[in-house]
């Protein structure tokens, strides 16, 4: 770790050496990061509210069209949430001890924990007598195991698409599950409730990153090197442990749809892209907002580059490569993972994993350049 005094010193420099525009100090990088995080969560919250509106409309008048509109809104909202995952893995507002991450994005979920599945028409909370209210669902979430997931993105996804048994497409839940099917009313209540809960949970995180308030962000901006370490920990852990490991290597190993991140909507290929992009956003301190506005500022890239340009270049190159390789992965992911070693889909995923591993290693090097010796990359 850098001693605190060097940080203070660099703050002083920032004020005294305004003419030297090339100089990047860690405090500016931290503030820019907070701006980016805040903007990304605002976009995630706004897009999830749009989804909420579409789901409300679907529940008011269930039809094939209103279901499709709700599904489209879910897909759009995932584009923004996916990028925020680069802000996880260091115990911030999203995944601190009391953070709502488990309620927001828990996966994979045991479908039969929520609703009927093939061969078990009476399974799940919806088809039981369990009261459907927020306190109950929160108590049931992750009860008896991290994957007894009752809430969040993937619960909504399952309720919109249903189980995916199609080789070339997503799940085919019929809107009649919300009209004439057994327990349609309870299913409606459930979908409404978990959607509202997701919006509320995202709002609680967004609030913690808002500028000018007494919140997590205010603390984060005063913590110097510790905050830099957190930023890099998020990038390293998402790169290696989560994206390469949990979300890709496990699926490659099992060749099982159960290990696909968004398995009901067949949207996993976009999860990969958005996660990879989220990492790039943070590294380059650049984020294209939902409005099209572009945020740019002092970056980790520049901070590392002024001490060791070749390490910074390696990170930039690896991250850009991962984004490119993520974009090359084809939908549906559940077909991409199956087959022999040289199946084209498996090869595409394999090079993606290798690139993520390489970027995790270069991020560890970048951390060392900044005096952080043991960067945690999840694995």
């Amino acid at each position: 770790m850098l001693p605190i005094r060097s940080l203070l010193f660099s703050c002083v420099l920032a004020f005294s050496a305004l003419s030297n525009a090339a100089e990047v100090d860690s405090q500016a990088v931290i503030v820019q990061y907070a701006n980016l995080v805040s903007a990304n969560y605002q976009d995630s919250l706004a897009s999830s509210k749009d989804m909420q509106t579409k789901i409300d409309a679907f529940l008011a008048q269930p039809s094939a069209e209103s279901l499709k509109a709700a599904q489209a809104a879910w897909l759009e909202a995932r584009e923004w949430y996916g990028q925020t995952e680069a802000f996880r893995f260091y115990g911030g507002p999203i995944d601190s001890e009391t953070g709502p991450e488990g309620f927001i994005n828990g996966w994979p979920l045991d479908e039969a924990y929520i609703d009927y599945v093939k061969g078990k028409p009476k399974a799940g909370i919806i088809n039981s007598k369990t009261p459907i209210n927020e306190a109950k669902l929160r108590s049931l979430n992750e009860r008896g195991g991290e994957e007894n997931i009752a809430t969040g993105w993937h619960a909504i996804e399952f309720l919109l698409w249903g189980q995916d048994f199609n080789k070339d497409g997503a799940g085919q839940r019929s809107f009649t599950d919300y009209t004439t099917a057994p327990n349609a009313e309870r299913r409606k209540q459930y979908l409404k409730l978990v959607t509202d809960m997701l919006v509320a949970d995202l709002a609680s995180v967004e609030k913690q990153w808002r500028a000018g308030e007494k919140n997590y962000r205010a603390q984060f901006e005063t913590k110097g090197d510790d905050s830099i370490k957190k930023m890099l920990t998020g990038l390293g852990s998402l790169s290696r442990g989560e994206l390469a490991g949990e979300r890709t290597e496990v699926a490659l190993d099992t060749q099982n749809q159960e290990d696909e991140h968004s398995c009901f909507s067949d949207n996993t290929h976009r999860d990969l892209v958005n996660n990879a992009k989220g990492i790039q956003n943070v590294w380059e301190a650049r984020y294209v907002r939902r409005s099209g506005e572009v945020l740019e500022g002092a970056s980790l890239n520049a901070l590392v580059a002024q001490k060791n340009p070749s390490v910074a270049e390696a990170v930039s190159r690896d991250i850009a490569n991962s984004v490119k390789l993520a974009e090359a992965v084809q939908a549906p992911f559940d077909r991409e993972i199956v087959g022999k070693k040289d199946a084209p889909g498996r090869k595409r995923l394999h090079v993606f994993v290798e690139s993520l591993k390489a970027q995790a290693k270069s991020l560890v090097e970048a951390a060392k350049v900044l005096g952080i010796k043991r960067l945690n990359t999840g694995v």
Partner: protein
Amino acid sequence: MKRSLSFIACLLAGSVLAYEGHAMLALFEPSEEFPAGEVGTIDDHGKNAFSLPYPGLTDEQKTDFVVGNSFFKKPWVEAPSSTTARDGLGPHFVANSCGACHALDGRGAPPDFKNNIQQEQPMALLLRLSIPGQKPDPVYGGQLNNQAVQGVKPEGKVAIRYEEIRGQFADGSSYSLQKPHYKIEQLAYGPLHKDIMISPRIAPQIIGLGLLEAIPDASILANAERQRAEGKGIAGQPNYVMDAFAGKALIGRFGWKANVGSVAHQTAGAFLGDIGITSSKNPHEECMPQQKDCLRAPSGGKPEIDDDKLAQVIFYSQTLAVPTRRDANTSDVLRGKQLFSDANCVSCHTPSYKTGEFAAIPQLANQTIYPYTDLLLHDMGEGLADNRPDGKANGKQWKTPPLWGLGLVKTVNGHTRYLHDGRARNMMEAVLWHGGEAEASKQAVLKMSTADRENLLKFLNSL
């Protein structure tokens, strides 16, 4: 972590003033900041502090770790199912994944109580059953399974009642302990055997297990020799248990009674016993002859977990990193370390080892580690006794559990429940339950001043 010498000097000067008379500070050893050596220690003190792999693993090993992790924490589901890689849960079970009890690779807690009323069935606390002669109950088998798949009856429900025990420290301040009493209700297959013996066991944190496996047998046996030679009434004994993977008896190193000799055996055993997942080592479901519904239930394949996946879960369980110490060089912690030593806690909670060869994971060899255990059985007195023998362990003996990671249980799992059944509500209660061979150590703690008791806890929390 590193502080300037002058800073430490200031602290030391302050502490000498603060601790009059015999107050002594233990020496700080830099290597103790890395309890699992360079290979196995990770610098994370957050919620994931128990969930990270040894930093010394190769990239291929990390892939095995990741896949093993997935099969450790994701739920097994009832067969038949579309989740073909993970079906075969039950018929009887305690949990649907390893992670359900070892939440975040950490420690389980007994059920919550509100106004003296038990709020739920235990999840991470299982009850072992036997009848004299160390035989399983003829109807219920070797442990109680309080869950079952559809169409099969759970064996029964666990009812816990706590009895309060009050006491005093020498300085007059009081403490209270709660002694649990267990009862099994709603029995599905008729009464338990009249001589039934019950032993509750809670899921402990599972960090550093491969390194514990890499401690040479000779070092464990030497602990027993040393304790005898010291003549302080401490007489540790190894448990010897048959190991399905080694094909011979090994020194027991895992489990509250050291009743398992290897992580591999433990893993395959827990898959069958706790989740109802068969493997090549344990090919038959644990359904007793009278449990017809259990015998009839569908299977998830033969075996339900294949050897490759089982090996990955075993590897995962061997390679969870141990967090770096916190504040190990502060005067309070060093004072606590001294007290821990003076009270002779170190005799059983043996601080450090040099690991030996370990063919499965060669990096684990020759590491200096600080697990704080002798891996031996000790008579812990009436208070903790379950009076149920287990292998060579008698009904009063328990294995000294390793203490590494102890201070992070709160952060990871949100509670501070300790001992074999989680009866201790905090670390001091855990200390105060010590009896039998540990009686003298406990008496030493009872005589400590408030400040020293605090320092002792600070030391334990820094582990």
